[in-house]
């Protein structure tokens, strides 16, 4: 039996959902421009050195990086075989934050620009191809700024501040061109767009660019909710989703701290 149940009175619902909003990525405590991290303050090196630099010599060797299941190559950003402050100059991704934000912005634009709304939960390769063909007024095989001029950016008015800042003032074509126009010819071909999305597909199809039958969708409306039994963080008895069937609805808020 579950440890805690809440009654969905209106005020509690509002509070719960407002709290849920803070689980979205990086929303809770950033109060400055994400892209302007001061290298002198990079907490990533401070974090790692405090945890692993046993002899305090400013270098974390493979022996010192004794994390079970850890892989030094994943944190050795400059690939010199050890972890030093140089790996994290400019922030946790070694100065790649600005590029990461550009890529996220481009993805966000594409989701709105190219999906066909049948399933707004992801973007499939077929949707991309169809959308490009639809927008390609001169049938050149690629989209230029003029052809994409009428494409609306996503409505982010209800999104966390980080997302709003990321999208502010951007246009779909410009946002995509700055990351995906590989040959810098001022137009976005289907190949260039596909290559860009493939590069971002980290294997769990967050923005699915795989063929539809391979893309995990999650259960659709009306389908049975996959059952699970998980342990509460607060301890106590495990909770089984199906134990609520016939009793009460269950809202599930999936997320992580980062």
């Amino acid at each position: 039996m579950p440890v805690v149940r809440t009654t969905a009175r209106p005020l509690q619902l509002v509070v719960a959902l407002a709290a849920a909003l803070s689980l979205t990525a990086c929303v809770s405590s950033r109060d400055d421009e994400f892209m302007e991290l001061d290298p002198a303050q990079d907490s990533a090196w401070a974090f790692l050195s405090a945890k692993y630099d046993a002899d305090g010599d400013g270098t974390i060797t493979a022996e010192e990086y004794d994390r079970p299941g850890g892989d030094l190559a994943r944190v050795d950003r400059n690939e010199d075989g050890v972890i030093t402050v140089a790996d994290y100059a400019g922030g946790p991704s070694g100065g790649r934050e600005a590029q990461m934000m550009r890529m996220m912005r481009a993805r966000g634009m594409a989701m709105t620009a190219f999906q066909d709304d049948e399933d707004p939960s992801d973007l499939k390769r077929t949707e991309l191809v169809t959308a490009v063909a639809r927008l390609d007024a001169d049938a050149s095989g690629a989209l230029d700024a003029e052809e994409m001029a009428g494409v609306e950016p996503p409505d982010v008015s209800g999104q966390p501040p980080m997302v709003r800042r990321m999208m502010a003032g951007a246009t779909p074509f410009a946002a995509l061109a700055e990351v995906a126009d590989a040959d810098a010819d001022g137009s976005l071909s289907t190949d260039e767009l596909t290559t860009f999305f493939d590069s971002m597909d980290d294997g769990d199809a967050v923005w699915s660019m795989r063929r539809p039958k391979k893309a995990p969708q999650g259960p659709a409306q009306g389908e049975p909710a996959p059952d699970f039994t998980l342990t509460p963080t607060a301890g106590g008895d495990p909770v089984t989703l199906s134990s609520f069937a016939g009793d009460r609805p269950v809202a599930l808020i999936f997320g992580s701290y980062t």
Partner: protein
Amino acid sequence: MAFYVVYIREAHPLDGRSPMGGGNAPIVEDPVDLIERNDVARVCMTRLALEPMPALVDDVDDAVNRAYAAAPDRLYLVARDGTIAYRGGRGPFGFLPEELAEAIEAELGTGGDTFN
């Protein structure tokens, strides 16, 4: 009505492909076992003041995450009859609490068993 946070794998662990963190934002290494992920989840629930809501932790095989295609964040409503009443879009752009609120009101207003 029951609410659960389901804590899944980190969206931006320090040793992942798209690390974030630093300044005031959390730096989290990718948890290697359930105990470690549970510790991170508890810190998260405390720091984000979500503690009144119970949180469940997905094991490091990410089974529930994959079953629900939930990463990086996502909202679902399971109806009284055990079927999906609402499936939100993928986060961050698809993560829309007001949609979940509407779905909850619809589910409670009409009652899941009314049409059975």
